[in-house]
C-alpha cells in the first residue's frame, strides 16, 4: 500500500528494523502488549485479530491484551464488541488476552458478567470517549466490580484538558485495592498523576504513545509495555521503550519487567 503511494519501501523496512533493534530484549522475555484495540472504531481506525497476531509475530511479541475499539453498537453497551474480542481470544489462544469495555452510564454489571462468562480477563474504560469522570459514582462502581472479579482495569489517561491527578486520587481512595493501568503514561498530566498514585503499587502506567520524559521519571516496576494499535504501532512502541531504557539506564531485569514481567504480575498468570 505504501509502495503504491510512492514510499521507499526498502527505507521504511530498514527503519522498522532499526526501531526494533533499538531495544535489546533480554533472553527469556515474553513481551506483552497491554494496549490494543480490536474492531472498527467510530473514527475509522480498525484492526482485526488475524492482522494483530501477524503483527505480534513480526515484532516478537508473545501476547496482547485487547479490548474493543469505540464501537458500542446499536445497544450502546459494547456487548457485541466485547463478545467479538472474546471470540478473537478463543481463535488465538495465548496470544490475545480479552478485556471488555463498558460505558459506566449504562448497564455495565450485566455486560461485564456476560464478558466474564465469555472469557474476559480485564476491563477497559475510556472517560473521554464515553464522557464520564474517573471519580464519578458509576465509574467507581464499575472499577469496584472489576476489582471484585479479579480484573485489572485499563484507563485511557492522557491527552485531555481535565486534570487527572485529583480524579484518580479520589477513585483510589474509594477502591484502594484496584489494579489500574493508566494508558499513555498519563501524558498531559503525568506529574500530578504519578504523585497521586505513588502510594499504590498496583497502579501502573502503560507506554503506549507516551512521552519519553514521563516514562523515565517512573521506576520501571510501574511501567507496562503498550502500543495502542491501531493508533500506534509496534516498531515505534518498541523504540520508545528502548530509548527510555537508554536514558534511565535500566538493566536487563528492569527491561524484562517493563516489556512483560509487570504485565504478567498484574494479569495474574494469564499471559503466556
Amino acid at each position: 500500500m505504501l509502495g503504491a503511494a510512492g514510499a521507499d519501501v526498502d527505507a521504511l523496512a530498514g527503519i522498522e528494523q532499526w526501531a526494533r533493534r533499538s531495544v535489546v530484549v533480554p533472553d527469556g522475555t515474553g513481551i506483552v502488549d497491554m494496549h490494543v484495540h480490536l474492531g472498527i472504531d467510530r473514527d475509522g481506525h480498525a484492526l482485526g485479530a488475524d492482522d494483530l497476531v501477524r503483527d505480534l509475530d513480526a515484532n516478537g511479541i508473545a501476547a496482547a491484551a485487547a479490548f474493543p475499539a469505540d464501537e458500542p453498537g446499536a445497544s450502546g453497551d459494547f456487548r457485541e464488541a466485547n463478545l467479538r474480542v472474546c471470540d478473537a481470544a478463543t481463535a488465538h489462544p495465548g496470544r490475545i488476552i480479552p478485556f471488555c469495555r463498558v460505558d459506566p452510564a449504562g448497564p455495565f454489571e450485566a455486560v461485564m458478567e456476560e464478558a466474564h462468562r465469555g472469557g474476559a480477563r480485564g476491563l477497559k474504560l475510556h472517560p473521554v470517549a464515553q464522557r464520564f469522570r474517573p471519580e464519578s459514582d458509576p465509574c467507581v462502581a464499575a472499577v469496584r466490580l472489576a476489582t471484585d472479579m479479579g480484573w485489572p482495569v485499563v484507563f485511557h489517561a492522557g491527552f485531555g484538558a481535565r486534570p487527572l491527578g485529583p480524579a484518580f486520587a479520589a477513585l483510589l481512595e474509594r477502591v484502594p485495592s484496584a489494579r489500574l493501568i493508566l494508558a499513555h503514561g498519563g501524558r498531559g498530566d503525568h506529574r500530578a498523576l504519578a504523585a497521586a498514585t505513588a502510594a499504590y503499587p498496583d497502579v501502573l502506567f502503560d507506554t503506549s504513545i507516551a512521552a519519553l520524559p514521563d516514562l523515565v521519571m517512573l521506576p520501571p516496576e510501574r511501567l507496562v509495555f503498550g502500543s495502542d494499535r491501531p493508533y500506534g504501532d509496534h516498531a515505534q512502541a518498541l523504540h520508545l521503550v528502548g530509548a527510555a531504557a537508554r536514558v534511565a539506564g535500566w538493566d536487563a531485569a528492569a527491561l524484562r519487567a517493563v516489556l512483560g514481567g509487570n504485565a504478567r504480575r498484574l494479569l495474574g498468570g494469564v499471559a503466556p
Partner: protein
Amino acid sequence: MSAPDVLRVIALAAQAEMALVRRDAVAGPLLAQAARAADGMPAGHVLAEAARLLRAAPEREAVRQAALSLCRMGLQEAQADLLGGAP
C-alpha cells in the same frame, strides 16, 4: 549538537506529531522543518523519511499513519539525545 539544536528538533517534531494526528495540512511543512533541523542527528534519518513520505502522498491515510509513526520515533530519539541517552 548543542542542546538548543536538539530542542529545536523536539519542538518541531512535537508540533508535527499533533498536526498529523489532527490531519492538519501544516504537518508537511513542520515535518520538513524538523527533518532539516535534525540533519546530522540520530533523529535525522527517520524525520527525513517521514517528511519525504508525507510529501509523496499527503492524502493517503496509510501514509499519514506511517509518517506519524516515523515522526514519533524521531521525536523520541531527539528527546533521548537531549536527556543523555543518545546511541
